[in-house]
């Protein structure tokens, strides 16, 4: 099965064959013989040329965070065909603006802006309390507040839209 791995700014072609614990993985031109077992959900043991690795693989938004040997990588793995479609089509460059969504469940303790306010990058938009900590969320760029969808005291869930800045 052919994949494309995007690691930071670099892109690697990856081909995987085999199964039941024994795999052949080709990265670019190099072929790796891998004995791999999942020993806990998301935690796998790899033997590669006799070296024993334990890798933690955690899903992120559209990628996998991999921790191994004290190093951490965020890797986007796509089937080759999907990668081609995505890159050929070109990304719809998110033309400015910021839609702030709640990244975690919590309670809005403070709303610092109102619709129409001008904000600078770094200005506080809202504060969410979760797990006894107040977490400030800031404007990522200068702009004008178009919408404020929450009020202080309100509970929010991950993904809820809080503030839209244009």
């Amino acid at each position, binding site marked *: 099965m052919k994949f494309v791995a995007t690691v930071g700014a670099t892109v690697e072609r990856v081909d995987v064959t085999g199964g039941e614990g024994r795999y052949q993985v080709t990265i670019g031109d190099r072929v790796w013989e891998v004995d791999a077992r999942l020993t806990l959900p998301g*935690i796998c043991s790899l033997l590669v040329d006799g070296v024993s*690795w334990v890798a933690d*693989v955690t899903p992120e938004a559209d990628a996998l965070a991999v921790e191994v040997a004290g190093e*951490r990588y965020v890797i986007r*793995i796509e089937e080759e065909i999907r990668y081609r479609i995505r890159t050929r089509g070109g990304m719809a460059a998110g033309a400015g603006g910021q839609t702030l969504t709640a990244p975690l469940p919590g309670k809005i303790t403070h709303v610092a802006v109102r619709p129409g306010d001008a904000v600078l990058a770094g200005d506080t938009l809202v504060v969410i309390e979760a797990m006894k900590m*107040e977490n400030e969320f800031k404007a990522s760029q200068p702009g004008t507040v178009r919408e404020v969808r929450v009020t202080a005291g309100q509970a929010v869930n991950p993904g809820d839209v809080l503030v839209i800045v244009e």
Partner: protein
Amino acid sequence: MKVLVANRGEIAVRVIRACRELALPTVAVFSEADREALHVLMADEAYLIGPSPAAESYLAIDRLIEVARKSGATAVHPGYGFLAENARFAEACVEAGLTFVGPPPAAIRAMGDKTAARRIARDLGVPMVPGMVEPVTSDAAAREVAREVGYPIMVKAALGGGGKGMRLVRREEDLEAALRMARGEAGSAFGDASVYLERAIDEPRHIEVQVLADVHGHVIHLGERECSIQRRHQKLLEESPSAFVDEPLRERLGDAACRVARAAGYVNAGTVEFLVDAEGNFYFLEMNTRLQVEHPVTELVTGIDLVHAQLAIARGEPLALSQADVRLRGAAIECRINAEDPFAGWLPSPGTITGLRPASGPGVRDDSGVYEGASVPRFYDTLIAKLIVWGPDREMAIARMRRALGEYRVAGVRTTIPVLERIVAHPDFKAGRLSTGFLDRLGPALTASADGPARPIAIIAAALSAYEQRRRVTPTSVSPDTPSAWRLATRPRWRGAP
């Protein structure tokens, strides 16, 4: 003595363990979010005290006293946080005929109110950080004091502790926002929103002294802990002894701590916190009238179980040791494993722990509040476990901590383990070049993505994960009943709904 543990998480488990070792029956309390929490499973009895928000459960004094009455508990251990430094709670216990495992209410007031504590230290001639000795009455008054004391200043919760309700302010224009946030955190964490101001010392070490005092007037200290590795005034890593403290300084710090405790009529376990500058000058900061999160490092170097000692003191027993009996052996380090994502702005990471393989083996202690399958509710703090190691010297303790952090696996929630690994591997940490600014000094290196020799292995692991996931959902793949070397990431849930 039958002990109600008015807390949750790892400290409730810690106290229940000590009680069990002393053959004292225990009563746990739990909120709706905590029915399956570890402290509920471990206690002899457990009672629901209210909805998930702490204000309606773990901070509800009436409900706690009611459960104590109903269950026949004769003593209350408050742990740390929640009501541990709330004098009204201690009073309510005493009025209900319950032994409060902690200092008398008067001592909590004298010391728990940080401004009152500062007045005591000043009267004893113990050096302290310049600042207020009364809480802030208004934003305007705060502005005035801040100008007198001089920026940068710290805003601190009057009833604070554990770093909550603290803010560093560098410029006057930030003061109002800092006051608001500190008050908010203080109110929700301690049930009292009072704050005060204190001059911020530049890059100090945070060094604290553990004291024990009995009802017969004996006060001893158990050496110091260094807690300079902090993020936003939250300790991440603590150790005992401090690499910076030599025997004469230890004696001077210990003597100052014991004098403060005596002057406050202090009883039970308490901690006197100091800031120490590069020249070894120390400044009294505050006294915490409770068990500290980081108490295990003191236990490992002294061999004294502090919760056992707390319970003995609460029963009116005299201290089992004199100051001369206290011997330090080796070095201990604690790392706080928090459910936070350091790679996404340290956001809290509540959720279900789908996989857990704690470190163990020689010299390793795991004080955990969770188990595989447990959930980390979004209502309480992020501490899920404390990993503590002992070694014959600091160098070996550090090596052991690196080994143990490398073994510790948590799946399902993000944790601080990866940054703790980077901290203990850092040359400044190894050399003992610490200050409360240590983490800022490290800056983005602490959470930078790596590009090292394991890169191809990471790609292989990610590719295999995707490969096996696609094989599973493809009709041509092996039957799901065929034993396969690779079943993917999320284990089926077999536990209860909220």
